[in-house]
C-alpha cells in the first residue's frame, strides 16, 4: 500500500476503519481512559470535525504527537501528521506567532531558557555569570499545534537551553547555540549529579543523541508522559490524567526530566518531578 504521508484525509479514513490495533500504545488513552483519545476513535472524530460537526474540534488536542501509534501500527499510518493537518484546516488561515526572550537579570553573555515554566529569581544566582532570559513557549506552542508558524527573538549570540521539546526547533535556528538541558549542564561547566532517589526521564520526543545521554545519567524511566503536544495546554487536566500512569511507574521517586510539559503534568498528577534546570535552583518535586 502507498504511504499516507501527504494525504491526511486518507490517513484519517484508514485509521477510522481500523479496530484500534495501536490503541493501548497511546499514552493519552491508556493514561486517561478517555475513549475519544483512542487513536482510531480520534481519527473518526477528526473526520466528523472536518465535516463541520460542532463541538468536536477540541478533541484534536488529545494527541501529544509522541508517535507511539505510528510505531505500533502494522502499516505505520501517520495519524499524528494527519491530525496536525486537520487542526490547521480547522483553525483556518495560518498565522504567525512571535515570541521574544524576556530579560530576568544577571550579567554576562545572554543565556535563554526556552520553557513554559518561568525561571524564578533564584535561577539568576544558580546561573551566575550569565545574563538570564526566559523565552516563554506556552502560547507559541499552542498556536504551533493549531497550524501557526512560530518566530522567536533572542539577543544576538545567545546560548539557548531548550526545556520544551514541543517548541519548534526551526524557530530557534540562527539565534545562537541551542542545547537541551542535560547537554547545557555540561557545556556551562556545572557539576550536576542526579538527586539521591531520582529517576531520569527519557521522553518519547527526545532525539536519539539526547536519549543516549539521558540513559547515561542515572536510572532511566523511558516512557512518554502523555503530556506534551497540544494536550498540555489545551486540556491540562487530561494531561495530568495521562501522566498518572508514568507517575505510578515512578513509585514516589523524584523524576528528573528534560521536558517541562512532562514535569508540569507529573506534578499535577501528584508525582514528584523537576526539569533538569529546576534541580539547579532547588526543586525536589
Amino acid at each position: 500500500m502507498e504511504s499516507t504521508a501527504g494525504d491526511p484525509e486518507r490517513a484519517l479514513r484508514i485509521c477510522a476503519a481500523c479496530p484500534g490495533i495501536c490503541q493501548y500504545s497511546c499514552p493519552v488513552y491508556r493514561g486517561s481512559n478517555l475513549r475519544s483519545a483512542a487513536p482510531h476513535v480520534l481519527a473518526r472524530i477528526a473526520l466528523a470535525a472536518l465535516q463541520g460537526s460542532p463541538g468536536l474540534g477540541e478533541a484534536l488536542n488529545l494527541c501529544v504527537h509522541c508517535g507511539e501509534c505510528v510505531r505500533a501500527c502494522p502499516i505505520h499510518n501517520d495519524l499524528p501528521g494527519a491530525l496536525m493537518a486537520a487542526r490547521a484546516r480547522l483553525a483556518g488561515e495560518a498565522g504567525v506567532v512571535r515570541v521574544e526572550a524576556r530579560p530576568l537579570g544577571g550579567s554576562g553573555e545572554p543565556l535563554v531558557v526556552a520553557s513554559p515554566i518561568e525561571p524564578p529569581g533564584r535561577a539568576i544566582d544558580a546561573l551566575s555569570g550569565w545574563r538570564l532570559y526566559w523565552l516563554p513557549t506556552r502560547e507559541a506552542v499552542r498556536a504551533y499545534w493549531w497550524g501557526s508558524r512560530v518566530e522567536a527573538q533572542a539577543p544576538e549570540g545567545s546560548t539557548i537551553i531548550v526545556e520544551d521539546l514541543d517548541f519548534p526547533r526551526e524557530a530557534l535556528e540562527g539565534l545562537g547555540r541551542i542545547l537541551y538541558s542535560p547537554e547545557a549542564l555540561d557545556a556551562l561547566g556545572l557539576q550536576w549529579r542526579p538527586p539521591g532517589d531520582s529517576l531520569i526521564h527519557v521522553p518519547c520526543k527526545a532525539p536519539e543523541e539526547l536519549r543516549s545521554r539521558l540513559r547515561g545519567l542515572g536510572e532511566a524511566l523511558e516512557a512518554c508522559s502523555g503530556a506534551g503536544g497540544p494536550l498540555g495546554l489545551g486540556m491540562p487536566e487530561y494531561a495530568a490524567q495521562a501522566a498518572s500512569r508514568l507517575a505510578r511507574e515512578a513509585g514516589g521517586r523524584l523524576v528528573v526530566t528534560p521536558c517541562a510539559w512532562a514535569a508540569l503534568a507529573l506534578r499535577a498528577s501528584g508525582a514528584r518531578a523537576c526539569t533538569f534546570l529546576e534541580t539547579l535552583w532547588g526543586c525536589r518535586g
Partner: protein
Amino acid sequence: MSLESFVEEARRIVGPRWVLVETWSLAGYAIDYWPLLVYRALRDPRGALSRGPAAAVLPGSEEEVAALLEAAQRFGVRLAVYAGGSGVLGGAVPDEGWVVLDVARLDWVDWFDEEAGIVDAGAGAPLAEVEGWLNRRGWTLRHYPQSLPEARIGGLVATRSTGQYSTGYGGIEERVKGLHAAVPGVGLVRVKPSPRRSVLPPLEQLFTGSEGLLGVITRVYLEALPLPECELRVHWRPGSFREALGEARSLAQRRLAPDLYRIYDEQEAPVALGVEGPAAIGVYEGPCRVARARLEAAAELISSRVEVEEGEGPASRWLRERFNVIASIARLLEIGLAFDTIEFSAPWGSAARVYEAARSAALSVEGVAYVGVHASHFYPSGVALYMTFAFDAGRLEEVYGAVWDRVMRAVSSAGGSISHHHGIGRMRLPYLKLELGEEGARLVARIKRALDPQGILRGFPL
C-alpha cells in the same frame, strides 16, 4: 426520570472528572466495531458520530459500579456497558438518551492464587496487558482472539469469546473460574474462583455471554497455564474443503487436533495464506515429546503429507500477520470494497451442508464481490465456520442487511447455530428465535426481566 439527577448523582459517586458530558468526549461511544456503523461513519462521519450517548461514566471501583446501577434504577436511566468496544455486532452501542458505563478504569491485574494459576483481572483490563503480565511470569491464558490488541477482559467474557488457540485450550468460558458482577436491585454478586463446583447452575456462566443485559461484570478470575515448552508449526493441502472437514472431525474426535487449527477453502487460502487451493495450518504445543507424538499420530490420519515448518511457511506467515487486519481493510477501502465476517457453528453431520448453504446465500446477493470461508475451532461434535464477504461499499445499505439475513436463515435451515463466538449484539437480535425457538427466546426474555425488571441495562431488546 431525570437524566440530570442521575448525572449529578454519578458525579458524587465517581467524582466529577469521570462523568463525561461534552460532545467531543461522547462521540467515540456512538459506534463500536460493528462494520455497518464503521462504514457508515466513513461515508458520513458527522451523521454517525452525532448519535452519541447522553453521558458516559467511568467508575473506578466495583462498589462504584453497584452504586451507579442503583442510581440508574432510582432515576430511570438506561445504561450501555462499554468494555473495549471491539465487538462487531453493535452490542455496546447506546440508544439516544442512554448513558454509557465504561469499565475502562477497572484495569487491574494480579494473582488471586499463583499456585493455581488463577489471575484476578478487572473487567477493564486490556487482554494484551493481562497476557503480557502473565507471559513475563511464565504463564499464558492462550486466549488470542483477533481482537487481542483491542479487547478488554469484561467484553470478552460478556460475549463468550473464543480465540485462535481455542481448539486446544477452549473458549473464554473454560478460563473463567469465578467473577464479580453488579446486578440491578441485587448488588455486587461475588462468585469466588473454584476449579469446578456443583451448586445449582454456575452463576459465573450466567454472566459469560450475557452481553451486558443481565449485569455488569466487574472482575474475572481466569485460569492461566504455564507457557508451552515447544511449538510445532505445520501445514498440509487437503484435496477439498469437504475432505478437510472430514480430517478435522477425525482428529478432533481422537483429541489429536492441533491446538491452533485452521482450514481454508479455495477462495480464502490464497488471501489468508498465499497458497492456491484448500489448505490447513496448525500449531501443536506442549512438552516437546508430547507435541511431537500428537503430531505424528495425527499425520497418520491425514491423507496428504504434513509439512513441519522449520522456517517460513503458510502457518508461520499466518502467525506473523494474524493481527494485521488494517492492511487488508486499507487495500479494500482503496478499491471501494467493504467487508464483514459472519461466524456460525454446526455439528459434523451438517457441517458441509451448512458451509454450502451459507456460501450460496451470501453469493446470491447482488453486489457481493467475494465470499471466502475458513474453519477455526474444532470440537469432537462439530466445527465453527467463519465467512468473510466483501461487497461494493457504495451499496452498503442494500447489500449488508441482505447478506446477513440470507446467511442467518440458510445456516439455521441447514442445521447450524447462528453464532459461534461474536454473540448477538444488535445485528443478530432478529434471528434469536431461529436458534432458541419461540419458548427459548421467551425464557431468556423472562430471565432478563427477572434480573433487570426496569430494563436499565440496554432496555428490553430480547
